[in-house]
């Protein structure tokens, strides 16, 4: 007979016995975690890093959550938003998972959230930075362990002004993530009194930047703020350096411009400033321990995505301990998750009312092929999320 069927019978049996229903199912069923991450296509590396981080955290807890074995159901989200609802539905309704972890891609997140709303499935977003997830679309059963576009770019607005830049040009891809990111920068920068001369939108996912660089050179701003990611980030930074702009016009960005790309930048990124909630060089015990454990387990250095996965795992460890492994009582589990406080590799981290991390955002500079932390740009930054009602 089917697992779900067994589980419901057991659950009703257990509730009939009144006592320790959590323990009863703990002996029988593993906790089912549905991973809806990209395992093929452009974002594969991110999906894998998150998975590695997540499993590391759970392995460090003896491979158990709240005393129960863990079963992973991996589903390739292939970063295809049009398939997101059906994939999410398959995890929740088909595989009957207890918690869904995903996705990487904001468009996919939208599709998942639609189903999360219908089904009430507990969802932890380990990457996708769309603001709406914890703002307009926030719901009790949805958490995020990563960042929002706003959270990573808002601090840079302050930093840019603080470093004396007054006229700044922003450039990003013409897509939702890019627009949200630049909006965060603009908010802080103009609040302080800076002037955003122009925002240039590049058709997504073009990496042909020459004409834009020419435009930037002719505008002669004090600095350029940019958001590109992946191949686009690499291309932009290299082209920016090759055009000789790096010497005269400092390049600022939100962390994803260079995250995971330092090697591919081939030395071109030296001196680029970015703000982000993590840097691999963070000087803390938690981070050092994490980096060496990750290195040992997976044979490579962790990146931000791995940390986000790791914290997702750590969060589950804490919350499921809190409820003694009982995943049947959703309300209790949600409450436990919302109450999680972590000493993460990225620093202290807890959750806001909208279930978004309250965390430090660091100012980083690329020096000698590493993200060196210059400063904490904003300490324990909380995302306002003022459209969230729950």
């Amino acid at each position, binding site marked *: 007979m089917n697992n779900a069927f067994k589980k419901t019978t057991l659950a009703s049996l257990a509730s009939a016995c009144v006592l320790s229903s959590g323990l009863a199912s703990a002996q029988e069923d593993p906790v089912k975690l549905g991973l809806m991450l990209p395992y093929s296509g*452009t974002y594969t590396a991110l999906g894998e890093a998150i998975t590695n981080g997540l499993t590391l955290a759970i392995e460090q807890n003896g491979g158990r959550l709240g005393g129960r074995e863990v079963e992973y159901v991996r589903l390739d989200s292939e970063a295809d938003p049009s398939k997101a609802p059906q994939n999410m539905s398959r995890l929740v309704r088909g595989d009957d998972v207890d918690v869904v972890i995903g996705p990487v891609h904001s468009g996919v997140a939208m599709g998942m959230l639609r189903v999360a709303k219908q089904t009430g499935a507990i969802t932890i977003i380990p990457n996708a930075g769309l603001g709406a997830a914890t703002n307009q679309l926030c719901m009790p059963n949805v958490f995020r362990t990563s960042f929002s576009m706003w959270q990573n770019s808002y601090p840079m607005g302050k930093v840019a002004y603080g470093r004396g830049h007054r006229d700044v040009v922003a450039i990003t891809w013409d897509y939702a993530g890019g627009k949200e990111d630049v909006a965060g920068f603009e908010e802080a920068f103009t609040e302080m009194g800076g002037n955003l001369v122009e925002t240039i939108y590049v058709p997504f996912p073009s990496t042909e930047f020459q*004409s834009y660089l020419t435009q930037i050179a002719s505008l002669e701003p004090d600095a350029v703020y940019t958001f590109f990611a992946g191949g686009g980030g690499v291309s932009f930074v290299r082209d920016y350096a*090759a*055009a000789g702009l790096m010497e005269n016009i400092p390049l600022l960005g939100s962390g994803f411009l260079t995250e995971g790309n330092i090697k591919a930048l081939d030395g071109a990124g030296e001196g680029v400033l970015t703000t982000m909630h993590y840097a691999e060089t963070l000087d803390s015990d938690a981070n050092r321990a994490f980096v060496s454990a990750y290195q040992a387990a997976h044979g490579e250095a962790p990146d931000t995505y791995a940390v986000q996965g790791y914290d997702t795992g750590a969060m589950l460890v804490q919350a499921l301990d809190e409820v003694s492994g009982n995943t049947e009582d959703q309300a209790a589990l949600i409450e436990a998750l919302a109450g999680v406080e972590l000493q993460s590799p990225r620093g202290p981290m807890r959750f806001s009312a909208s279930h978004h991390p309250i965390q430090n955002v660091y100012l980083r500079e690329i020096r000698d092929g590493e993200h060196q932390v210059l400063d904490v740009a904003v300490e324990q930054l909380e995302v306002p999320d003022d459209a969230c009602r729950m």
Partner: protein
Amino acid sequence: MDLAFFGVQLLNGLQYGLLLFLIASGLTLIFGIMGIINLAHGAMYMIGAYLVYDLTQRLGNFWLAILIAIPIAILLGLIIERLFLDTLYKRDHLYQVLLTFGLILVLNEAQRIIWGGDVHSVSVPAPFDASLPLTDNLQYSVYRLFVMGVCLALAGVIYWVIRHTRLGIIIRAGAVDRDMVEGLGIDVRTLFTLIFSVGVALTAFAGMIAAPLTSIAPGMGDSILITCFVVVVIGGIGSIKGAFWGAILIGMAETFGSVLIPSLASMVIYLIMAAVLLVKPRGLFA
């Protein structure tokens, strides 16, 4: 818009257009002679870039890497043609579309298995790793000039081959009427294998020389494919001359479109295509 700005943008548009021509030339060649629509064309571009990345890593020399990568690309074209396409010439274009779509899935995933999902890059090779000042605050990579030179030279070679060699006569005849090729007493099978391999190699080569200018990432071939299609449609399918002017037109349109009408930047090439189709349904040079 001052004159210097205009001049630099002209240069940008020309450089982009020339690279586009190199990528699209293989596509239009294959269309023209073989009547085959190859959706996996973008994947070939990606493979060229990855090959040169991999070989540069191993050998430490970009030029050597290109030298070795070209025969590999030709071989790949040969295998694909003999194994899969050989059977499709008689059939409807639908089957070509589907088979090459299947090839995209396979090649993209093979890329991931072999090289992983990370973003890579190739350093600009000596002796072109320098920059020239264009304006007081803008420099231009010498390698970009070199790429332009290579593209122009290849365009010249292709032009010469088509105008002045026996192969060229066959190609021109084939683009007009494929029966005539048989009439000339050509072994069509060998010709097709040759053309397809050369077409694939041209595209892969474009990926190779473009590698130091771009980032090497999964899926990099997908977006270039559609742009190439637009180039070929505008120029006229099978026409090398059309591909050349189509590519220059698109290069200029993207460059100036992004500056002058930023709100339509992503659509400008499609709008041009629609306009061309309205006036000349078979393209400008067909």
